[in-house]
């Protein structure tokens, strides 16, 4: 990025900090409501407390993959194509994978108490596991080396295929006979309701998970931007460092090169090829 194109931030730093603090506060409130205020229920006992985390995790994962799909469509349409849509899709998919994995873990704990098994090949569970596998594949595809535009187009198509599993997961309990229960609450069915404490717990869980997702998305999206810059400009840094070692002047503008291995997969940074 050159000096003539200063970076703009859609959400100012203070806004992101406020969002993070709100997410933290909502999380604390949800935990207190779930573990202290809410009592055990007649049918599910202590395990009903998982209502605060399990359904919100699953729903926010749907939202995350929905954002990935929407951003992928916007990337594929030539009129709206921008690299930022690809970065947003990647960022949201990664968070969606974390939320889906946590949905499976908390669901497994809940399932063990009610069904007596940690896992069963129930339609809802299988579709959810498939969703996780599909988006893990999507994230792997993003790491396959290719020209930037080709990689982004390829990933956008893969995301649109993977997201088709979201309605399958959601409607699995209606389409098939499943061990997993259907919806807990319904606006049209008066027999499907929660008591006030569980209703508040569920609401707090949704608020907390949504805020956490929003905060993570902004942070992860910015990270995608930094990674993209480092891919392009990291080689310049490494060359300048070598030139400085040899007592030479730094090079000119950054060449559009891809320093393979400049970013280690562990999350730590290396200083480009030696």
């Amino acid at each position, binding site marked *: 990025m050159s000096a003539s194109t200063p970076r703009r931030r859609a959400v100012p730093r203070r806004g992101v900090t406020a969002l993070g603090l709100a997410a933290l506060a909502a999380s604390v409130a949800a*935990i207190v409501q779930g573990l202290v205020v809410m009592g055990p229920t007649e049918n599910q006992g202590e395990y009903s407390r998982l209502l605060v985390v399990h359904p919100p995790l699953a729903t926010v994962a749907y939202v995350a993959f929905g954002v990935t799909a929407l951003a992928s469509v916007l990337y594929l349409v030539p009129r709206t194509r921008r690299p930022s849509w690809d970065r947003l899709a990647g960022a949201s998919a990664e968070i969606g994978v974390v939320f889906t994995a946590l949905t499976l873990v908390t669901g497994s704990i809940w399932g063990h108490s009610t069904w007596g098994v940690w896992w069963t090949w129930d339609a809802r569970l299988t579709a959810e596991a498939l969703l996780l596998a599909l988006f893990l594949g999507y994230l792997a595809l993003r790491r396959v080396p290719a020209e930037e535009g080709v990689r982004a187009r390829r990933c956008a198509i893969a995301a649109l295929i993977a997201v088709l599993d979201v309605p399958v997961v959601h409607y699995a309990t209606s389409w098939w006979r499943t061990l997993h229960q259907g919806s807990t609450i319904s606006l049209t069915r008066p027999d499907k309701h929660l008591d006030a404490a569980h209703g508040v717990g569920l609401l707090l869980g949704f608020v907390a998970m949504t805020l956490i997702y929003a905060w993570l998305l902004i942070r992860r999206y910015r990270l995608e931007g930094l990674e993209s810059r480092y891919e392009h400009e990291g080689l*310049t840094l490494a060359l300048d460092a070598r030139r400085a070692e040899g007592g030479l002047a730094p090079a000119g503008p950054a060449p559009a090169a891809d320093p393979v291995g400049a970013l280690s997969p562990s999350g730590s940074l290396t200083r480009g090829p030696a």
Partner: protein
Amino acid sequence: MNDVLVGYGITFGVLALYAARVLRRGRALRRALEPIDVADGEADP
């Protein structure tokens, strides 16, 4: 109740670890890109 606590612990623990990883990686990349930003006059004040 123990299983429930484990469920809450895993959920919020994993989310906290993931958030920390994103922040740490962002800071490392910003530090690595700092020389270019300074050269471009774009460094944060």
